[in-house]
């Protein structure tokens, strides 16, 4: 079984009288170690799909397995555990806590997984080192640049050693040079064997991924081949 498996997944919202079909019969498999990009224009349902994959939401119908666990009918607590243990999420808006410093932000997921204070610190420092921010450990997010903030977010996503890292428009709020370094960081993680799925509307960014999953009007129009290995070089 693939690491991620979606079978006939639909997601419908009710907005007043109107029912909106955000996702319509999605069939998708993502294998361990893949570097995939979900691409589509805005309103195509790619963010909704990302939220489902990230266990932030559940599908209306259909089944979704992540690492062999059926999350389509899981309880809110179970989903929280999935987000905590199996999934790292990187947001377009970084979503760091402004009142905490870099270390505190990176430690955050471990607070909810019962890691001792000492181990929390150790692991957080290691993750911060991996994204190259060791010299900013005690700064608060407001004292960092956009690229640095996104690195903190990536460190936070990695700190619980998740199976999959999802990134929702990770370069959307960054200038192109900084964006490129962040993408390079993702590629590096992929080379180390981590499964990475990113969402983007930018073809250039998507081209850097090994696999392109195109979505339009809630349907997958091109899933690409499930390729495992080194990503394509531009």
């Amino acid at each position, binding site marked *: 079984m693939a690491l991620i498996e979606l079978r006939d997944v639909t997601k419908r919202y009710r907005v007043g009288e109107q029912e909106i079909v955000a996702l319509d019969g999605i069939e998708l498999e993502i294998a361990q170690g893949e570097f995939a990009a979900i691409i589509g224009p805005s309103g195509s349902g790619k963010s909704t799909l990302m*939220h489902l994959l*990230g266990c*932030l*939401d559940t599908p209306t119908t259909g089944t979704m397995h992540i690492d062999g666990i059926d999350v389509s009918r899981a309880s*809110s*607590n179970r989903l*929280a*555990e999935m*987000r*905590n*243990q199996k999934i790292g*999420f990187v*947001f377009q808006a970084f*979503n*760091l*806590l402004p*009142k905490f410093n870099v270390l505190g932000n990176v430690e*955050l*997921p471990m*607070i*909810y*997984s*019962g890691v001792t204070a000492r181990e929390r610190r150790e692991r957080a420092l290691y993750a911060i080192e991996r994204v190259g921010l060791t010299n900013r450990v005690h700064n608060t997010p407001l004292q960092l640049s956009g690229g640095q903030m996104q690195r903190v977010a990536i460190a*936070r996503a990695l700190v*619980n050693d998740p199976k999959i890292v999802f990134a929702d428009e990770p370069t959307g709020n960054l200038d192109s040079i900084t964006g490129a370094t962040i993408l390079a960081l993702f590629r590096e993680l992929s080379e180390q064997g981590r499964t990475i799925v990113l969402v983007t509307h930018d073809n250039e960014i998507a081209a850097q991924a090994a696999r392109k999953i195109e979505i339009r009007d809630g349907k997958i129009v091109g899933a690409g081949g499930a390729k495992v290995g080194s990503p394509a070089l531009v």
Partner: protein
Amino acid sequence: MNLWLGLLIGLKEIWAHKFRSFLTMLGVILGVASLLAMFSLTAGMARGMREYMQQIGGIEFVSVIKQDVPPEQEFFYEISPGRTIDDALAIQNTSGLVSYVSPVVDIGANVVAGAETFKGEVKGSWPDYIPINKHVVEIGRGLSWLDVERAQHVAVVGRSVVDKLWPERPDYNATGETILINQRPFQIVGIFEFYERTEDKRRRDLGLKPAMGAGGGGGRKPPTRGAGMNRSSPFGRKNSQILIPISTAFYEFRSANMVGKEDAGPNYKLDGLVFQVADTTRFPETLNQVSNILRTTHRGVEDFGFDTREEWFDRIEENVRNVRTSGGLIAGISLLVGGIGITNIMLASITERIREIGVRRAVGAKGRDIFVQIVVEAAVIGFIGGLLGLVASLGVMRILVAISPAENAPVLEAQNVIISFAFAVVIGVFSGLYPAFKASRIEPIEALRYG
């Protein structure tokens, strides 16, 4: 997420919004302060009342009083001798439930020593009168049975009597002095201690004025003896007492009984008969027993009754309880208002922090983790507010005492401090429940989309 971490987050949150947190706490602070001040004032009141009761003999004090006979006994009531020494002897010899008993005769008297005169009441009694009335002999000795047997001309007097007779000599040891009681010489053999409220004693020791209108002699000598001089208070009455042996009292003052122009012979009727119940848990049995004894000595005529403080005590305790309950309720309501303030601020704060909640949820916080965090924050506000409230209560008490100088100073009791503080923490926790529940129900996606 453990509680310790929640506590740290709560403290951080409070510190980050110092002024807002303080305003939130203010309700709790004032609530706790008024609750504790209320408790302390009633505790002071209760202590004052209990002291008063103790001074007049305590709950174990019983007085045998004259009473109208029941209608069916009206035609032969004359066969009863009334209250006599025999009653006291019979009780002393036969009642095991009575610890002390004393007959009493009252003699209105002019007491003279040198140039000074003191108009007062002289009581003829047995030595037991001293423990029954909780008298304490400070200098010299009390009455003895030998004094009674031999009808000695000795007197034990209160401190105010000495102060009045020797006004120029504060704290005079008057034992050995001779005083004239209605022209008969008596030697002072003992002086009682000065009775006063604990509060007055404290103030006197500190060199302050007594709390309530000082009875006479203000400024005569510092430190002034205050309310204890006032003869209408139980303290004043005790301080003005003169005790002599009852035998001497009969012999000197009651051996002639002039009715019109004829001498009706000695009058052995008592003016009082008092006793002390040995075990207050057996109050009814004791009264029953004494009643049976007196029925024998009174030849079956029920011309006596009992004046007890039991009901009085119960009433006082009930009053104190009522005041405490109603006062506590009012203060409790203000604390509740403080709690509503916390709820209000917490609700506003979760709306403000919805994004933070979303981030926490996204990285793996469960609904209950968010719940705990908010409740702990509210509890911390209650906790700190409670502590500050305890401090503030001291100020509130000072203000209350300054505005209306009560007879009794407030008493800070440990249990009341604990109750008030615990109540603040409980209010904090409860006021956090609803906002916490609301916060825990926010879906992560909605929270992240917000703002």
